[in-house]
């Protein structure tokens, strides 16, 4: 479904990613872990069109997408939930969800998508008319994920969904991710919370200072001594 081949990217003269190749198969959950500043968010931004790769190629359903603007990427079926969710805090919950269905393909199915989202996240239906900025941290993350679902994505990319949240709320957020995984969505998630994230995934990558240093299926990833020592504290 998603294929990243030899991508290098950065900001101006500052290179953050070096020769990254990853893939996400249809219907799977793939995670990328790494410490702060490793380049995980930059990879998501390169895929979603926010950052233009300096070299390499990105394919989505065999169509080359690197260099496409963000609005075209989302119309193709890739939804990106940035770190912190970045909900429109002065719009209501309903308006945030409606914005999610802005792409033409999603607009036609707005009513059905809204029903689905409210079934998955009933709390949002209760808070429909509430201004989004008044929601708690966990509720905002729920809204951000629900808004991404409204775009009718084929792939959902999540950037550190647990970032900045209290442990109890982190557990809730990972429950949200499990909920959408159970719906059959393909998910590509970057996270610092390795144990919880790998628990959800079929495949995992480890990124360190812009370079892929390890990849593997869930079990072999968790059994790797370096990862156990550096990231799981075992």
């Amino acid at each position, binding site marked *: 479904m998603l294929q990243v081949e030899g991508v290098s990217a950065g900001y101006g003269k500052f290179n953050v990613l070096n020769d990254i190749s990853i893939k996400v198969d249809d219907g799977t959950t793939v995670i990328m872990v790494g410490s702060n500043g490793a380049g995980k968010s930059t990879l998501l931004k390169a895929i979603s069109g926010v950052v233009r790769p300096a070299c390499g190629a990105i394919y989505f359903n065999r169509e080359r997408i690197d260099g496409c603007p963000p609005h075209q990427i989302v119309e193709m079926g890739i939804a990106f939930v940035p770190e912190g969710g970045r909900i429109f805090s002065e719009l209501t919950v309903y308006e945030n969800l409606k*914005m999610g269905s802005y792409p033409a393909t999603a607009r036609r199915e707005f009513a059905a998508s809204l029903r689905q989202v409210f079934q998955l996240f009933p709390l949002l239906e209760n808070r429909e008319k509430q201004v989004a900025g008044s929601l708690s941290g966990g509720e905002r993350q729920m809204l951000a994920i629900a808004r991404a679902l409204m775009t009718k994505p084929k792939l959902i990319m999540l950037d550190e969904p647990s970032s900045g949240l209290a442990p109890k709320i982190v557990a809730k957020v990972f429950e949200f991710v499990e909920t959408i995984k159970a719906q059959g969505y393909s998910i590509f998630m970057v996270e610092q919370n390795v144990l919880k994230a790998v628990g959800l995934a079929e495949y995992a990558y480890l990124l360190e200072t812009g370079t892929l240093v390890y990849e593997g299926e869930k079990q072999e990833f968790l059994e790797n001594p370096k990862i156990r020592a550096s990231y799981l504290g075992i």
Partner: protein
Amino acid sequence: MGNLILNGLANGILYGGGLALLAVGMNLIFGVMNVIHLAYGQCVMVALYAVYVFAVLLHLPLLLSCVIAVGISALLALLIHVAVVNPLLKAPLINQLLALAGVMIVLENIILAVFGSDYLGIQISFPVFAIGDVYIKISSLIPFGVGLATLALLWLFLNRTYTGLAIRAVVHDRDMAELMGVRTGRVYWLTFAIGGILAGVVAACFAPIYTVHPHFGAAFTLTAFVIVVLGGLGNLLGGSIAAFLIGVISQVTGVVFTSEIGEILVYAIFIIFILFRPQGLLGAKVRT
């Protein structure tokens, strides 16, 4: 004295409606694009001349002349956006201001070259009617009524349509709006075009009342700017409230004392706001 104040209040509210209409276009453009449209008043002035040309020189019906003037104003706005504003969107603020100041001078001098410096007007006299001791000018009722209707339509557009929702999303978080599929380039030119339409509507309301002169644009721009700042830059509700306050203050002071003292009071209040509450009535305080 009581009657004077009552008349000032009534006409001030009506005047405020026209001011709200004048300011909303500039406010919308700033709210969406962070651009202070210094040539906004000149766009109103050009639309006023358009009404004059079609209604007086070409003898078209007044309503048709106004509709054409609105169209011309929208096209002028798009031209300014494409030629001047869009290329400077990422430039420093001072560059934008200087370029738009240049547009101001260009428009004024084009009009001066074509029409000369005589005051021109449509010369329609409107009746005055009385409700008790309060005398209402029909010429003030028109911009008030049109202003309210336009603000209501704008509210419906921004709150009940996908495009309006996209514009509001761009105001709050442009990058996130793009990730939702919004083409911000389109939003920008649409916003500028709406600003142009609103300038044309202002001209249509003011054309039967005011004579027009190439240098009127500066007065319109200054008035609109004061209202926008007093209300809170980019805040449409704040701008509307500020417009009515200014309308009432200037008219009441004008009838009790003189119109010059009314102007002095309005600008004194503006200076006080800049000193003590620069974010305006409903603007958010900027944290540094």
